[in-house]
C-alpha cells in the first residue's frame, strides 16, 4: 500500500493510462503548462509531451465534442472539463452526441470516452462555481456516472472507466483533492456499478456519494455515541445504480436517509428515495428522508454557504427525529 | 457488561422460563420463585441458561444468593467483575 492524496491517486491512474495505451491522450483547459486547475495533471506535460497532454482554449463545447470525435475514430481520450460549472457549455455535446450516437446509429458506433470534472461547493466560490449537478448527468441513458469519494476509488474508478466501450463521466468533489489515503498501486480497475458499505449498522441506512461521504461518516460517528448504529452506503456510481445493496440494507434497518449536496427538488436523492419506496415499501418503518442543499444559489459568505449545505449536524438531527 | 445489560439478560432468561409472567412489574426485592411460580426444574433451567449466556457457573450452594432479582443482579455483577468482564454502569 502507498499513502497519497486523492489528486495524486487520480494522477497515478492518468500516468498509467498514458504509459500503457498509446491511444490515450489528455485534453482540457490548463492541464499542461499550468499543471491543472486542481494540479491533478501536474508534471504530465513534461513526461508525455504536448501532443498527449493538450491545453485547450476556453471552448468547452468544442473540445468535448472533439473528444467524442477522436474517441469514435480510434483514440481513447480523457477530457478534463475543469469543473461541472463549465461543463454546462458542453451539455449539448454530452447529451445529444456522446450519450446518443450509439443508439441513433443502430449500434454501429461506440464512443470510448472518459470525461473528468471537479464538482461541489464548500470553498466559498459563490453561486457560479459551486454547483453539484451529477444528478443531471445520471438522468441520461447511454453514459456511466462515477463519483469516487475515496483516494483508492479516485484511482480505481478511473482505471475502470478506461476499459468501458461507452462514455464515462467521473465527478471529483473539489474538497477531496487534498484528502490523504492508502492506495494499493498493483490493484487494477475497481468495479463499476457496485456500492460499498463503508460502515455497518442496524438502526438506519445512510445512502450518499462523492463529497458527502465524509460528512455522512462523521454523522454516523456522532449517532453511534448516542446508541444509534448507522449503516453508511457509498454509491460510488450513480449510473448504473446498485439498488440491491441499498434495499438489502433497508431490509435490515427499516429506515433510510439519502445525503446529497444537490438541491432537494429533482435531486439524485429523489431518485434513490423513489427506488427505495418502489423496491422496499414493505420494509419501511419511516418515510425515506433526504438531506440536501437549501434551494438557493450558493452564497459567498462562509456562514451562509455552511447553512445552505448539508452538514453532519443536519444528518444527525434528521436521523434522531426518526427515533423520537 | 453494564448493570443495565445484566438486568435485561436476567429478565429475558426468566421470560423464557415463565413466558406468561409480566416481568415489567416484577418486584426486585421479593423472592423470584414465588412471584413467577418457578419450581426447582425451572430454576435449574434458569441456572443452565445463565451459564450458557453469561458463562457464570452458579454452584448449588449459591442458589440462596439468587432469591430476588436485586440479589441475583448483585451476585452476577460480582461474579462478572471477578471474571474481569463487567463495566460500571456508564
Amino acid at each position, binding site marked *: 500500500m502507498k499513502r497519497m492524496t486523492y489528486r495524486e491517486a487520480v494522477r497515478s491512474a492518468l500516468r498509467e493510462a498514458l504509459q500503457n495505451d498509446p491511444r490515450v491522450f489528455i485534453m482540457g*483547459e*490548463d492541464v499542461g*503548462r*499550468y*499543471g491543472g*486547475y486542481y494540479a491533478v495533471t501536474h508534471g504530465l506535460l513534461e513526461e508525455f509531451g504536448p501532443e498527449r497532454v493538450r*491545453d*485547450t*482554449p*476556453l*471552448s*468547452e*463545447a*468544442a473540445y468535448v465534442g472533439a473528444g467524442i470525435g477522436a474517441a469514435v475514430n480510434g483514440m481513447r481520450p480523457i477530457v478534463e472539463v475543469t469543473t461541472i*460549472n*463549465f461543463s*454546462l*457549455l458542453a451539455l449539448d455535446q454530452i447529451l445529444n452526441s456522446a450519450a446518443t450516437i450509439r443508439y441513433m446509429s443502430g449500434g454501429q458506433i461506440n464512443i470510448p470516452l472518459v470525461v473528468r470534472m471537479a464538482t461541489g461547493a464548500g*470553498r*466559498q*466560490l*459563490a*453561486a*457560479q*462555481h459551486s454547483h453539484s449537478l451529477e444528478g443531471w448527468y445520471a438522468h441520461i441513458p447511454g453514459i456511466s456516472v462515477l463519483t469516487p469519494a475515496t483516494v483508492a476509488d479516485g484511482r480505481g474508478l478511473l482505471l475502470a472507466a478506461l476499459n468501458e466501450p461507452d462514455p464515462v463521466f467521473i465527478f471529483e468533489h473539489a474538497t477531496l483533492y487534498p484528502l490523504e489515503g492508502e492506495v494499493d498501486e498493483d490493484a487494477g480497475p475497481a468495479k463499476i456499478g457496485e456500492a460499498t458499505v463503508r460502515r455497518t449498522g442496524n438502526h438506519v441506512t445512510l445512502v450518499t456519494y462523492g463529497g458527502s461521504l465524509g460528512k455522512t461518516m462523521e454523522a454516523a460517528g456522532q449517532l453511534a455515541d448516542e446508541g444509534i448504529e448507522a449503516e453508511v452506503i457509498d454509491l460510488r456510481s450513480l449510473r448504473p445504480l446498485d439498488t440491491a445493496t441499498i434495499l438489502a440494507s433497508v431490509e435490515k434497518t427499516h429506515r433510510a436517509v439519502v445525503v446529497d449536496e444537490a438541491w432537494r427538488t429533482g435531486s439524485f436523492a429523489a431518485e434513490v428515495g423513489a427506488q427505495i419506496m418502489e423496491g422496499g415499501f414493505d420494509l419501511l418503518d419511516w418515510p425515506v428522508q433526504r438531506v440536501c442543499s*437549501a*434551494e*438557493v*444559489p450558493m*452564497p*459567498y*459568505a*462562509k*456562514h*451562509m454557504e455552511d*447553512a*445552505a449545505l448539508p452538514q453532519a449536524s443536519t444528518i444527525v438531527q434528521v436521523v434522531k427525529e426518526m427515533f423520537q | 457488561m453494564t448493570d443495565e445489560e445484566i438486568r435485561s439478560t436476567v429478565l429475558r432468561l426468566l421470560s423464557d422460563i415463565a413466558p406468561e409472567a409480566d416481568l415489567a412489574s416484577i418486584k426486585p426485592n421479593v423472592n423470584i420463585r414465588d412471584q413467577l411460580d418457578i419450581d426447582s426444574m425451572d430454576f435449574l433451567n434458569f441456572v443452565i441458561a445463565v451459564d450458557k449466556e453469561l458463562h457464570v457457573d452458579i454452584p448449588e450452594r449459591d442458589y440462596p444468593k439468587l432469591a430476588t432479582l436485586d440479589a441475583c443482579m448483585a451476585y452476577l455483577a460480582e461474579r462478572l467483575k471477578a471474571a474481569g468482564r463487567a463495566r460500571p454502569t456508564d
Partner: protein
Amino acid sequence: MTTEHASLRRPERDHALALLGEMLRIRRFEDKAAELYQAGKIRGFLHLYDGEEAVAVGAMQSIAADDSIVSTYREHGHALVRGLPLDCLMAEMYGKANGCSRGRGGSMHFFDASRRFYGGHGIVGSGLPFAVGLAMADKLRDEKHVTACLFGDGAVAEGIFHESLNLAALWKLPVLFLCENNLYAMGTGIERALSETDIALKARSYAIPAEAVDGMDVLAVEASARRAADAVRQGKGPVFLEARTYRFRGHSMADPQLYRGKEEVAEWMKRDPITNFEERLRDWGFLSDSDVRDMEGSISAEIDAAVAFAEAGPWEPVEDLTRYVTSR
C-alpha cells in the same frame, strides 16, 4: 495600433490628474485586496487588475451614467471607475451584508443596479449575450445608451463570443465590445489558444468596426473609446475595441505563473500605465511631489476607512438564506 497621435494632444491638467488618481486608486485597492486575501479576510477566488488600469480608466471616460456596464470576474477596476463605493466593494469581498451584493457574490460578482453595473460574470464569455440583450432593449426603446461589454482574450475562444458578435452586428445593437487582451487565458498564452491572435481582425469578420489600442496608455484608450462610444451612440451598431494590455499579477492568488517567464513580466512592467503616465504629467509640469503625496494620502485614507467599514460590517442573518431566490 492608434497610439501616437492621441497622446500628443495634451489633456487639461485637472483631467490628467483625475485619470492618474483613478488608476492609482485601483492599484492600491488591488494591493490591499491581495494583503487581506493572504491574511484570510477575503476568501474563495480573487483576480486582480494590476497593469490593466489604463483600460478601465481610459474607456470609462466616455461611458455615461445611464449607459450599462457588463464585466467579468476581474472586475475591481471596472467597478471602482464606474463609481461603486470602494467601501462596499471591500465589504463584499469580506462577505459582509453591507457589501455591494449583500455579501452574496464576493470578489467575482459585484452588482449595482442603480449604477447599471450589471455584474461580474464568472463563467468566461457569459457576459457577452447579456450585454447584447441590454443593448437590444435600449434599441427597441430608442434609448441612445451604450452597453459597454468588457471581457478578456480567453472569451474569444468561447462559442458564445462568435454568436454574440454576430447577433449584435446583425441587429445593429449599441454594444461597445471592449476586449482586455492581457495575452493569457489563465495559464494558456494567446498564441496557444487562438489560431488568429489579432482579435480586432476577428471582430471585423462580423462586419463590426474594430481597432486595437495600446491598453497601457490611458490617453490612447480614452481617445479610442470616445470615438467608439460616439459611433455606437449614433446607432450605427456595435464597435469592437481590443485593448492590448498585460496583468502584472497571477491569474488568481493561487497561480504559480509557470506559464510565463519573469523577464516577460519585467519587460511589461516597464510600461506600467501609472508610472509612465505620472512621468508624462511631470514632463508637462502638471504634477508635483506634493500632488502625488496628497493623492496617495487620500487614497490610503479611503482604503483604510473601507477596511474598517468591512470589518465592522454585519454578517447576513442565516434566516435570510432563501431571500432573493425569486422576486415573489
